[in-house]
């Protein structure tokens, strides 16, 4: 029973964080382009904008294309949203404050997060729309290419900490400059690879070929409207926020930080927002690159680099420089 309550609270907290992180992104992007961003809905600085957007999407007409594959089309947003929410299940937000601190926590995260592609494909194929189908094919292409570097980069802290349990990984980063991002050499490279792979896995600029507006209109969700569109959007941002939390946990020491223990979750949130802003910064700074370039970056550069990095980490740990208990 307590699990249900915790899950309910956590789910709503995630939705709230996701709603406001969209506002943060819009404000951030606006600042980068010398604009103000959302301003009028709610004083100060349009803080009610996400709520207004959600209400608007709920009231919109739900259009289903006549020639779509009904079941696949209608189920796709749910199938897409489910893994994006499930990834939060194993993240501990403070010592003991989490849904399930499994001893394969990181692996669970990676496994569930990989299921996102099923919903994405269902949306692209079920819509029976050329643009959506092309987008789904590009997505499949890209996910195959960037899943492996992402996993290898995320495994570097796991090997350093000698555990797949998320809380154990945080505990292994205690002490001054103990965070894995400060680990000489390996830490910085792994964090860089993690951020690049995250941008690609989340399909953001410069890797956003699957929703490239100028060619594919809006990619796999071009036919969706109203609440279904909102669910897909929610899933996409939840996935990004979840990946930011994982990055903050693996490389930036999770809830560790100065001050009393109850500040832990706030530190964690702050670090996750930092990772999110890093990704957003890249998004609003670069231009989209071509499909073949994206694939080349993954297979010719990122994948070999992360494999070598993981091997090097193994040697370092075998030499006795690990941080495991």
């Amino acid at each position: 029973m307590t699990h249900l309550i915790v899950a309910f609270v956590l789910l709503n907290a995630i939705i709230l964080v996701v709603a406001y992180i969209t506002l943060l992104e819009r404000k951030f992007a606006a600042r980068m382009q010398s604009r103000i961003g959302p301003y009028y809905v709610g004083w100060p600085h349009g803080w009610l904008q996400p709520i207004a957007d959600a209400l608007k999407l709920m009231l919109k007409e739900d259009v289903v294309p006549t020639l779509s594959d009904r079941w696949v089309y209608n189920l796709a947003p749910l199938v897409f949203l489910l893994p994006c929410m499930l990834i939060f299940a194993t993240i501990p937000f403070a010592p003991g404050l989490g849904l399930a601190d499994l001893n394969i926590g990181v692996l669970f995260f990676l496994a569930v997060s990989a299921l996102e592609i099923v919903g994405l494909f269902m949306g692209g194929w079920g819509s029976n729309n050329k643009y959506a189908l092309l987008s789904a094919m590009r997505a499949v292409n890209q996910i195959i290419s960037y899943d492996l570097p992402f996993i290898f980069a995320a495994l570097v802290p796991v090997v350093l900490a000698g555990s797949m349990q998320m809380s154990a990984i945080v505990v292994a980063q205690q002490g001054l400059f103990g965070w894995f991002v400060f680990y000489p050499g390996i830490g910085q490279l792994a964090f860089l690879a993690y951020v690049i792979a995250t941008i690609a896995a989340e399909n953001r600029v410069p890797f956003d070929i699957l929703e490239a507006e100028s060619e594919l209109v809006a990619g796999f969700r071009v036919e969706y409207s109203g609440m279904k569109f909102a669910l897909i959007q929610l899933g996409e941002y939840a996935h990004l926020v979840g990946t930011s939390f994982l990055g903050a946990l693996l490389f930036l020491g999770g809830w560790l930080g100065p001050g009393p223990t109850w500040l832990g979750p706030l530190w964690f949130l702050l670090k996750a927002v930092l990772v999110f802003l890093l990704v957003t910064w890249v998004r609003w700074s670069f231009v989209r690159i071509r499909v073949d370039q994206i694939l080349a970056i993954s297979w010719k550069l990122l994948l070999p680099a992360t494999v070598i990095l993981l091997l090097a980490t193994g040697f370092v740990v075998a030499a006795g420089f690990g941080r495991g208990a």
Partner: protein
Amino acid sequence: MALAAFLLIAAVALVSALGLILKRNAVHGALFLVVNLGSIAALYLMLGAEFLAAAQVIIYAGAIMVLFVFAIMVLIPGKEETGPDPRRSYRLLAAPLGALLLFELAVALAARRGAPGAATAPAGSVEAIGRLLFTDFLFPFELTSVLLLAAMVGVLLLARRRA
């Protein structure tokens, strides 16, 4: 409680497997296969094999399914999905082969039943599986990697010939 959960998951697995072979639409079949692989992962989880469950999801439900779907989308042009089967004769082979597989499974199950206490399933933890893979099962493990290498070389050869 555990029994109810098992029955539910088993039912999902069975229905999705039936959907996989009965659906004419290849993409629907692939989606049913995702459900099937996911429910098998849930069964692994119930047996305490956490690592196996996660690996099942990450490799089969994730990567392999993605490849299946990709192949279906690229290779199957619209009409052949629902048209008559071009290789009808192959179907005659299906029944005997299926029966053989069923027989094999039955024999394996019977042999297992006859040996009480033989169910020494290794602990499902990552450490235990890693240790087993690199000690007792090192040879099959290395053999698998050679198999994968052979597949890779084959793909390279095919790609070269076409270019």
